[in-house]
């Protein structure tokens, strides 16, 4: 398709997405797009953490949930201004990420993975059991719409453009980040932590910053989610949601710029499709069967296309990136030798 200028491809797609609300009156489509947008915010942060800093979190649904509950509690219980509550929604997860990340990021990847896995489960239990504050399993209703001055985001279209605006700003910021000295330093950590340290990179601090950043974004998305749905309960913030975020990051392609949007869109679309298709194929079956597919996709993708589907066409990385024998256990050996 020579008539499409490569440089205009993504801006074109984004422009098309931006005019969708003007040409459709399907609230279903619009709400799906908003949800994809909110997930993209989370996956952008997770993408920096996984694709650049080489770390993994199995607890981002908890940061997402903490953002949502911060907004819900501050607005319904304390009648705080909505913008202020949104700020709190981003900050609280950031502070918690700092506390979790500081000790665990100095160690092998799996320690942060385990700590975030545990943290995610704990927060979910907290949402369910914290009756007075969180409303227990039935959650919190009656969250007001987000308002800036006298402007109230009370319709899907307004909310769509809010999320789109945030995403565009965020994408510009992330583009700046990954092309900067900080982005290169993060990639350097992923490639060789020893060499990165020798170049003067404070690897522990940088990984921590990436983790805090990803938690802030998840919290922000959670706050926006609460303002959009105006009702929250523990179920969207379970471990399963954390797995979906990891899946989105991986499907779209780690370390790529458009990966998060692509991944969020594909996983949400697949989820919607499976929710419709599974009961058709297997009578009496609910949507929860989709985890079979999610698990399978995760495994197959990580084995055969770890760069994600976003990189299928254009291989960003050379095939010869690893020397033979440079497998997982040699890495662990190196850590044993150089570490504690």
């Amino acid at each position, binding site marked *: 398709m020579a008539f499409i200028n490569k440089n205009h491809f993504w801006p074109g797609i984004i422009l098309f997405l931006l005019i969708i609300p003007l040409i459709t009156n399907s609230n279903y489509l619009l709400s799906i797009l908003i949800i994809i947008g909110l997930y993209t915010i989370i996956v952008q942060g997770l993408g920096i953490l996984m694709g650049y800093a080489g770390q993994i979190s199995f607890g981002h649904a908890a940061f997402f949930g903490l953002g949502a509950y911060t907004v819900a509690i501050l607005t319904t219980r304390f009648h705080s201004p909505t913008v202020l509550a949104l700020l709190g929604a981003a900050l609280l997860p950031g502070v918690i990420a700092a506390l979790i990340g500081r000790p665990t990021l100095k160690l092998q990847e799996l320690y942060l993975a385990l700590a975030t896995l545990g943290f995610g489960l704990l927060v979910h239990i907290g949402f369910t059991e914290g009756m007075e504050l969180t409303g227990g399993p039935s959650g919190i209703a009656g969250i007001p719409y987000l308002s800036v001055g006298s402007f109230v985001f009370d319709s899907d279209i307004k909310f769509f453009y809010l999320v789109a605006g945030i995403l565009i700003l965020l994408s510009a910021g992330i583009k700046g980040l990954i092309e900067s000295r900080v982005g290169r*330093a993060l990639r350097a950590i992923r490639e060789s932590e020893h060499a990165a340290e020798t*170049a003067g990179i404070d690897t522990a601090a940088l990984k921590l910053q990436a983790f805090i950043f990803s938690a802030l974004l998840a919290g922000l998305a959670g706050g926006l989610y609460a303002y959009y749905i105006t009702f929250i309960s523990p179920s969207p913030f379970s471990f399963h949601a954390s797995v979906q975020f990891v899946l989105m990051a991986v499907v779209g392609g780690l370390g790529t710029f458009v990966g998060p949007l692509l991944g969020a869109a594909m996983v949400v679309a697949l989820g919607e499709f499976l929710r419709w298709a599974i009961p058709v194929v297997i009578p009496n079956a609910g949507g929860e069967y989709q985890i079979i597919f999610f698990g399978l996709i995760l495994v197959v993708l990580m084995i055969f296309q770890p760069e994600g589907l976003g990189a299928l066409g254009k291989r960003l990385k050379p095939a010869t990136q690893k020397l033979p024998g440079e497998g997982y256990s040699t890495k662990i050996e190196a850590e044993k030798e150089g570490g504690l």
Partner: protein
Amino acid sequence: MLLKIEGLTKIFGGITAAKDICCQVNEGNIFALIGPNGAGKTTIFNLITGMLKPDGGTIAIDGKELIGLKPYQIAAAGITRTFQNLQLFGDMTVLENVITGAYLKGKTGFIKSMLPLPGKSREDLRIKEEARALLKDIGLEKAAGIPAATLPFGQQRLLEIARAMASGPRLLLLDEPAAGLNSMETKELAGYLMQLRSQGLTMLLIEHDVETVMEVADRIMVLNFGCAICEGTPAEIQRDPAVIKAYLGEDGNVA
């Protein structure tokens, strides 16, 4: 005197990898560490760069104590190194490797990098120019845009030195820079090292290729089983009976 090491000791579960090592390296010198495999040469590098914590002794650069500092802090103090088993950022381009080596010369932080600030690109441009100049020194300016992992082995070694140089170090630690190079490449490398020395750079060199060591080093320390058996100029080393016995073999002769 730039680097001063006193009583440096490291024990790994009963095996002494470095025992009471003392040495002084003068500004602008090439100081070589030689000795058989397992003599503790790389251990000394790991101790100087903070990757290992010593069990005793002191290391100071310009009178500034280094023990207890993290590797990145030691890099900021002006010490950098290359690795025996190359540690390039393989997915990055050749140029990006050198630019990343110049990390300490930049100031842009996590938040600042996301904001559209004018000072940022000026900083980037300056560092990029310096990186290109370094690539030119090692003759890799044409390869600037290709992934580092695709370079031939010999050029990867040179690139690692250029990356280390990008931080503007006062002391460069070279761990077997000639390993795996053919004689032609080794000559080029020796020439590059002499060029760096003429610019006033101080270097610590681990090398098995005795010919290169004798050619470029100002002083040499011979290690065996973690102990320094002698230290002196290349001429002194070649005459020392203990060295000849321990390292060069009974009837060893050095070219």
